[in-house]
């Protein structure tokens, strides 16, 4: 599986570590009720299909990326920098 890093180009996935679901992790709730924090920390949609994930390019440019990847086939559907991604708060 290769990840097309916006700075480094297409790199083997072992240059990266994966943090998790970008749609959750980049949308930290402003209302820190127990329910909101619990959902943020623990609840995941875990789809069989397109999944936006936070990847960190530790073996390259050391940027955080949002990788949209199909979890059924590992096909990479799109990559963008986390800081400019649409869902970042």
């Amino acid at each position, binding site marked *: 599986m290769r990840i097309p890093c916006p700075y480094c180009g297409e790199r083997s996935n*072992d240059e990266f570590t994966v*943090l998790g679901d970008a749609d959750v992790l980049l949308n930290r709730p402003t209302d820190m009720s127990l329910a909101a924090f619990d959902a943020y*920390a*623990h*609840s*995941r949609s*875990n*789809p*069989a299909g397109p999944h936006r*994930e936070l990847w960190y390019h530790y073996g390259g440019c050391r940027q955080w990326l949002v990788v949209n990847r199909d979890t059924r086939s590992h096909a990479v559907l799109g990559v963008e920098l986390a800081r400019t991604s649409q869902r970042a708060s």
Partner: protein
Amino acid sequence: MKYSAFTVLREALRGGTGWLPAWREPEPKPEYDIVIVGGGGHGLATAYYLAKEHGLKNIAVVEKGHIGSGNVGRNTTIIRSNYLLPGNTPFYEWSLKLWEGLEQDFNFNAMVSQRGVLNLYHSDGQRDAYVRRGNAMRLNGVDAELLDAAGVRKMAPMLDFENARFPIEGGLLQRRGGTVRHDAVAWGYARGADSRGVDILQNTEVTGIRVESGRAVAVETNRGVIRAKKIGLACAGNSSRVAQMAGLHLPIESHVLQAFVSEGIKPLIDGVITFGAGHFYMSQSDKGGLVYGGDIDGYNSYAQRGNLYIIEDVHEAAMALCPSLGRLRMLRHWGGIMDMSMDGSPIIDKTPIDGLYLNAGWCYGGFKATPASGWCFAHTIARDEPHTLNAAFRLNRFTTGHLIDEKGAGAQPNLH
């Protein structure tokens, strides 16, 4: 038809023509008292114990493929109860006790082989952690021994004891741990459940769960709607997808774990050896191939295959531990879908929906739990409340903070 040495002999004299099917292939009924979703090890064990321990009839197991085609058909066969935390140890020990009596109980040869599980340590710090775990085991009445380097050398002389990075200083040994022939577990539980009246419905995929007024009342399948008074989900890596059919969002991510078998060789590895520092473990099957593996790949996956860097990583760990393995060829490798939970421990519980029960979150350690998981899930469903042994495996423990985190890694599934 009871299996025994006598029946093997009798049927051999009849040219093998008298063997009966091990389970029926019934048409789905429109309604059952209990429907178990998932015909893997845990689902089949649950149906078996519902019928056997609780005397319940009118049960169906619904499986989207053929039984045993998921993780129970492709794991590394290890059984053990060498856990640290109070929520875990009694449960896994009960499972090991069930393994010890299982073949007689379900009249099927599962090749339960208690050949020992040895966790190697390479530093004082790792030794101290293993001493702590061994003492936790002893406090729960579980067998544990601490071996020094000489003790390990007697059991496994072929390992690299002088490895500069990972010198072998000793190991934590559970002699009652070992391996089991995993396919036989699925078949044995299926045959035992079927013979007690459970309908095993293969190639029957659940596509929806009907909830009316907060109560689960039916599953929708590719073979029609099946109504049920109680529904138990035992879907392993597919738990999130199935639970979402009932509107539940689980604290689970599905990840790929790869595992390997080498070409067959003469007996070399007598027991199960784990190299915790290198994240590697191995044993040898009775066919002669080494059965081994290491870490999960680290990203969400339903693909049932992984990537090359893990293959390289696992084999590097094998070479560091036992350089003589370098002459062997990897024969077979595969990947499965692991339901990784937010604390690395499982969930066996009721859900907020009446009549809907959940068994999930086994990460990569579900095989050894198969008997106790089925036994406890059967109790939870039959009595509509958890047994003491699975009382800590609550779905809401992430909210209440009662986490069971053996590694202390926190709420990130790919770290467990």
